[in-house]
């Protein structure tokens, strides 16, 4: 058996989390609260060492120039507004950084979505048909084309549907379910791998009973 304290702590916490598979219990609850506590601690440390010290503190006390210091102070103050709800009368001020965050994300996403997703994926669908050199490639391209079309029709929410659109939409559902099946299969690989990793840790690193 391992003589390292860290291995023992990790092994006991792993078993405590596994105990949830039997039923909810006090040991699991302890492990759950340890995770929440450690997670919060890590978050505070990360904020301190990756944002507050290098960006805010150094940005103000040792700036590249006056302009960069001014920007740092301005955006730090905007960030501080997130804490406005602690003073009920000033709670509305938190909406300013919230609005900036949402606007920034939306502005950043739209051109990227057009450039990196809409155009290349439309092009890929078109090229699939245009460049198909073999019977198999033609079938492949047609499957992609029918799948793309029918799923787009399925997600049309405000279009009144007749029999034809309903039929196309139902084909879209079939494609969605096939896609979900593929995701599910991959997820099984993922989950099994994590479990195998844990078992290797418990029986290998902790108990030393696995062949090397």
């Amino acid at each position, binding site marked *: 058996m391992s003589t390292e304290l860290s291995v023992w702590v990790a092994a006991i916490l792993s078993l405590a989390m596994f105990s949830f598979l039997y039923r909810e219990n006090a040991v699991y609850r302890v492990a759950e609260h340890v995770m929440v506590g450690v997670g919060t601690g890590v978050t505070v440390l990360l904020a301190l060492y990756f944002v507050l010290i290098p960006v805010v503190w150094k940005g103000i006390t040792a700036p590249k120039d006056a302009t960069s210091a001014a920007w740092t102070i301005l955006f730090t103050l905007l960030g501080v507004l997130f804490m406005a709800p602690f003073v009920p009368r000033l709670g509305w001020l938190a909406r300013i950084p919230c609005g900036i965050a949402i606007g920034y994300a939306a502005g950043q996403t739209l051109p990227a979505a057009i450039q*990196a997703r809409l155009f290349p*994926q439309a092009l890929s669908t078109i090229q699939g048909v245009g460049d198909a050199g073999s019977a198999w490639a033609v079938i492949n391209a047609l499957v992609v084309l029918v799948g793309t079309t029918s799923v787009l029709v399925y997600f049309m929410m405000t279009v009144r549907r007749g029999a034809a659109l309903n039929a196309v939409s139902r084909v879209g559902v079939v494609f969605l379910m096939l896609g979900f099946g593929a995701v599910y299969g991959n997820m099984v690989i*993922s989950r099994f*791998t994590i479990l195998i990793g844990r*078992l290797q840790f418990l029986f290998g690193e902790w108990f030393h009973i696995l062949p090397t």
Partner: protein
Amino acid sequence: MQKLLNIDRRVVFLGVALVLFLGLVLRPVIPLPPSSEARKVFDAVEAVDADQAILIAMDYGISSRAELDPMSRAALHHAFGRGARVLCVSFDSGGAPLAESMLGAVGLELGKVDGVDYVFLGYQPDITAAIMEMGSSIAGAFPDVDVDGETVPTDSVAVMDGVTGLADVALALEMTGSKHYQKWVDFANAQFGLKLCTGATGAIVTGQYPYLASGQITGLLRSTRGAADYETMVTKAYGGLEPDASSKMSVLFLGHLLMLAFIALANIGHWATRRDAQEAE
């Protein structure tokens, strides 16, 4: 037949644990030919000349280590085997220390020098802003780096000679279990033309196939299978890599057989129960 649908879930858990444990002990060998998408990753790294820069992004934390660590380790061995300069980064706050530690360990194992052959650029909280900045200046996004425990300006490190922005990077390998790959596709590839390969957990890999088909991603490592394929190819070409994902593949195979058996049993039970109900009506 109703019993088949009412199997206690704890029996299922126990069955899975037993089968996987047996697999770990018995270690059956199941040879698998490398998948085409993993072969593309291998070929992309092979196309990088000695002294060119490869960027490896380990954007994952503890929960994805089992699947992605073998890929990252194989990628580091492969890049060092090619004689390429390795720049490493992590946009996962929990994963950054793990990434730095793995880079240091592999570098030490292969006799590579920190700051000369490789460098860990660090972690930034805003991945999009950092990638945009890296497009024109990697040192702008990561002004300082730690080399042998000492903090120095990124520009002053030997491994960064001639590397200013992403245009000076020959290839990027993005390992992730989250949507971070989307940022690399959206900004690093689409805006700066960075050649990109990805390694993904099973949970998110399906979403990456459209990008592989369109050529935005050059190669793709699919979960443990992709990691095992890549590991095998790197070991065959350069040696010196302990099998990690490969050792899990045969155990996975047994687990999958058990899953198929459970699915079959449940469907038989469901079908029979429905038939009985119809007959009763």
